[in-house]
């Protein structure tokens, strides 16, 4: 329980490093959780992070599992609130200001300029993610089948993801 203030401090701090995606905060998270506070070992953090990749929704909700392991359910709730609420309020405020700037000429410039950059950042992240994920013929086939299915059909993509989990369970061990 005496770890609660530290949990709140650490995860609120880490949340502000996640510009462009959760992965951006990972190196500092490792320093804080493993080296500074000794909450988890290196291996444990990797396990918890991988479990986060399995979760639906924001995969950085793995912070709740860290909180849970350190201080139980209260720790999980505090870690999640500290990680998602402060940046959430910032986003809300910036979104409001953005909507009020409808007649500001630079708004269109920012919108037009950041559109291709946002796609580029996402595709860049995807390439790095893909380098780790595509490791052989089975994974190439899974990625390709999902790509074609999403391009050509209107079937809910979650079904392909779950199906790939089942295929992986049998074919990738």
């Amino acid at each position, binding site marked *: 329980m005496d770890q609660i203030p530290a949990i709140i401090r650490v995860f609120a701090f880490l949340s502000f490093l996640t*510009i*462009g995606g*959760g992965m*951006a905060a990972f190196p500092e998270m490792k320093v804080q959780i493993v080296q500074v506070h000794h909450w988890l070992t290196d291996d444990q953090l990797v*396990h*918890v992070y*991988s*479990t986060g990749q*399995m979760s*639906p*929704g*924001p*995969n950085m909700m793995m912070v*709740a599992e860290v909180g*849970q*392991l350190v201080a139980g359910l209260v720790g999980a709730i505090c870690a*999640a609130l500290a990680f*998602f609420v402060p*940046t*959430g309020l*910032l*986003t*809300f405020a*910036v*979104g*409001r200001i953005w*909507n*009020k*700037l409808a007649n500001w*000429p630079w708004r269109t410039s920012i919108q037009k*300029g*950041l*559109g*291709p*950059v946002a*796609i*580029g*950042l*996402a595709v860049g992240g*995807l390439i790095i*993610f*893909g380098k*780790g994920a*595509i490791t052989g013929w089975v994974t*190439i086939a*899974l*990625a390709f*089948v*999902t790509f074609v299915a*999403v391009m050509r059909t209107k079937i*809910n993509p979650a079904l*392909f*993801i*779950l199906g*790939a*989990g*089942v295929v*992986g*369970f049998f074919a990738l*061990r």
Partner: protein
Amino acid sequence: MSKKPSILEIFLTFLTIGAISFGGGVVAYLRDALVRRKRWFDDVEFLELTAISNTLPGLNATNVAILAGDRMGGFGGAAAGLLAMCLPAFVFMTVAGMLYAHHGTRPLANAALRGVAASATGLLAATWYKIGKKSLRGVYDALFLVLAILGITYFKVGVPVTLLVVGALAIFAYRPHVPKEKPAEETDEWIKSLQ
């Protein structure tokens, strides 16, 4: 976008996305729900929300939920979007933590995880291809797209630096065309637009 949805509908929409978006590609599910099925936004507007979300701290999944929720239902909509987006993952991860603490080993199969990651790569590639095809036009867009990709993958300068450098270049390239206006007038207009 003729009629605004109720807070409950916003909550349920994001709760569904938060519960089914396996594979680490929440943006794909967000587009599928908000653009294709609900038609609350078109692709250009959706990309605008994603661009703002990318620029700010916080995850894209939750930032888009907040911005979209606010546009659809004000503060209540934003709060409902954030809470609903987080709730399923919170339950999932807290239960995982309890299992992990009891058994000490990772309960979820590594092999299944690798299948999921491979499929998610295909899903995200398809999603970004669709968004890009509908929203990108001209040589400038192509140039900044490639520069941003290179910043991440080739020069490896990280997201904040890439965003700052390529973003500033791109905004400058699309700067407003008012060459003879004095800066003071521009500030006036900016202040007026805030009122």
